[in-house]
């Protein structure tokens, strides 16, 4: 699974909190994400059209924000805490504009048995916060985490 020192489902404490570094979302990020995803919606690509919109300018793709926060949290947690995704529930609460700086605040909120033996599910609640302290995205991610092998 990973090169990190062994951390198993049993080792992850419910209630543990994490805060990521910040990252400024740039025009380049938005252009690359449009090219990669193929989502060229005017919301993200037409500066002139967006002048007249409620946002006043282009905004980052919501899924770009989701992807960036995943990378930000990966920088401060062991691999196991953000292991393979089982489920995501997510709300886009406000725009991320070009030049905004976002970080992630997260907490392990629940642990439960996985559907397959040998695996548990860890739930991480996350908030994506901008430079003004506004929560722009929030939700929960469920991750599959291996259980400590039983000794023979």
């Amino acid at each position, binding site marked *: 699974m990973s090169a990190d020192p062994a951390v198993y489902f049993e080792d992850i404490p419910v209630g543990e909190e994490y805060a990521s570094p910040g990252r400024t979302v740039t025009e380049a990020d938005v252009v690359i*994400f449009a090219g*990669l*995803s193929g*989502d060229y919606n005017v*919301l993200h690509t037409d500066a002139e059209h967006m002048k007249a919109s409620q946002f006043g300018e282009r905004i980052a793709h919501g899924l770009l924000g989701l992807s*960036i926060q995943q990378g930000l949290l990966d920088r401060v947690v062991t691999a196991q805490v953000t292991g*393979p995704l089982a489920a*995501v*529930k997510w709300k886009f609460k406000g725009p991320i504009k070009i030049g905004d700086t976002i970080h992630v605040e997260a907490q392990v909120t629940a642990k439960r048995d996985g559907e397959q033996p040998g695996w548990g599910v860890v739930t991480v609640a996350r908030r994506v916060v901008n430079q003004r302290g506004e929560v722009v995205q929030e939700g929960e991610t469920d991750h599959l985490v291996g259980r400590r092998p039983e000794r023979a």
Partner: protein
Amino acid sequence: MTPSQPASRVYFEDVRTGMPLETPGMTVTETHAALFNALSATRPGEPGTIPDLLPLCLSSGLGWRVPQPPLVVLAFMGFEWRFLKPTRIGDTIRSVSKTVAKRSMKEGGIVVEERSILNQHDEVVQSGRLTLLVAKRPAA
């Protein structure tokens, strides 16, 4: 006679529930994975695998390539999503979606879309529901 113009945009009023739309396929390559990993700075998974969030991101672009004019999306409100099977480099994914609910609001309307991502073996690899805010048809 002037030929009738096909609708160039799909507004809230035009959205029909229950009508499935299927996108073309896309082969997910090592380049997609490398670009995604570099952009997001997520921790790379096992060699040969596609990052969990990438098929969802690709489905957002594939969604514009269905046989209907583009939906006038004002905002992506949220989603619930399940990751059922891994996607590997070389797999070809496509997405099938339909509107399952719509609700008129003061500004625009809420559209709930059910979406599944399938691979070349017709296995559902990811699926869930997305909530969009869609513009109403401007007054003529």
